[in-house]
């Protein structure tokens, strides 16, 4: 398609990336994916004990989706690298969302370790999308190390607080040639639309959908908003002005 986002050589027409955590039941996920049309879906990797009768996450994700495992649980680059390798051994492709977090309260990422992990994993052939604290210089380093895109946070993970970092994210979008994907914190479709209007390449949403009263409907709402924001970005918004300007003609008045 004309306006596809291409990452790792794969064209992606739906710019809403979907996280699969926190849903009250995996059974919701197929509906969420189909209603949103998401093509990129994140998962986490966890130890499973014998006898734990957990369902296979992958059964709930359509074949044609790109599965992007994250490295949640990693506190260092080395841990992230190991988790990424394990994830790849699952045989679902070579995309990886790097998450290196040492702060348990706000789950803010460690950019320095994330740069290191990006270097290693990109060199090993992964399609690397690092979750990061918004920081132009750090983003440049990640891209220099081979990241396919950078994913700055809008606000802390799971807070639904929206795009609180817009000042720094806008600069990243304006200065970087690579895709900037806003990940974490977007709470409402209007937040996602705003990110896209600013020129974000995509957004990754999880909590806002998973914690909605009706996650399937909310997924569709986010999907529409992402399309709206992208379309507005392409349509070239009119300028803001301080003073009013009549929308009806200023001539031919009866009075």
């Amino acid at each position: 398609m004309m306006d596809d986002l291409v990452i790792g050589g794969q064209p992606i027409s739906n710019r809403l990336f979907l996280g699969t955590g926190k849903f009250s039941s995996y059974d919701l996920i197929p509906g969420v994916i189909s209603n949103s049309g998401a093509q990129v879906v994140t998962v986490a990797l966890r130890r499973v004990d014998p006898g734990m009768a957990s369902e296979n996450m992958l059964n709930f994700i359509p074949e044609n989706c790109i599965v992007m495992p994250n490295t949640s649980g990693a506190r260092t680059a080395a841990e992230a690298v190991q988790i990424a390798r394990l994830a790849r051994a699952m045989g679902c492709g070579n995309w990886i969302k790097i998450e290196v977090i040492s702060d348990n309260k706000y789950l803010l990422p460690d950019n320095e370790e994330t740069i290191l992990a990006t270097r290693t994993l990109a060199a090993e052939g992964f399609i690397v999308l690092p979750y990061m604290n918004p920081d132009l210089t750090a983003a440049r380093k990640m891209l220099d190390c081979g990241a396919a895109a950078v994913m700055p946070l809008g606000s802390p993970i799971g807070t639904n607080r929206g795009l609180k970092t817009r000042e720094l994210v806008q600069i990243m979008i304006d200065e970087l040639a690579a895709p900037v994907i806003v990940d974490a914190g977007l709470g409402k479709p209007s937040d996602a639309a705003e990110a896209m209007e600013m020129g974000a390449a995509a957004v990754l949403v999880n909590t806002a959908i998973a914690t909605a009263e009706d996650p399937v409907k909310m997924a569709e709402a986010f999907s529409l908003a992402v399309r709206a924001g992208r379309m507005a970005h392409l349509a070239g918004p009119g300028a803001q002005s301080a003073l009013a300007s009549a929308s009806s003609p200023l001539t031919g008045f009866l009075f």
Partner: protein
Amino acid sequence: MKIVLNGKETCCREETELLAFVLACGFNPERVVVQHNGRILTREEWAGVTVRENDRIDVLQFVGGG
């Protein structure tokens, strides 16, 4: 015989091939990935690896995550 499975000490009857171990534990080989003494194994390698005393085995799978 003791091994460390997913970080916890676990008892095991005897030395066994990893593939058999995985199946005996009830894991679905298609949906898990296994790390043996810190080394990530492909599924093809499972048949050639023996689980021995004090081995560290990690079995992981995908779960919902953001």
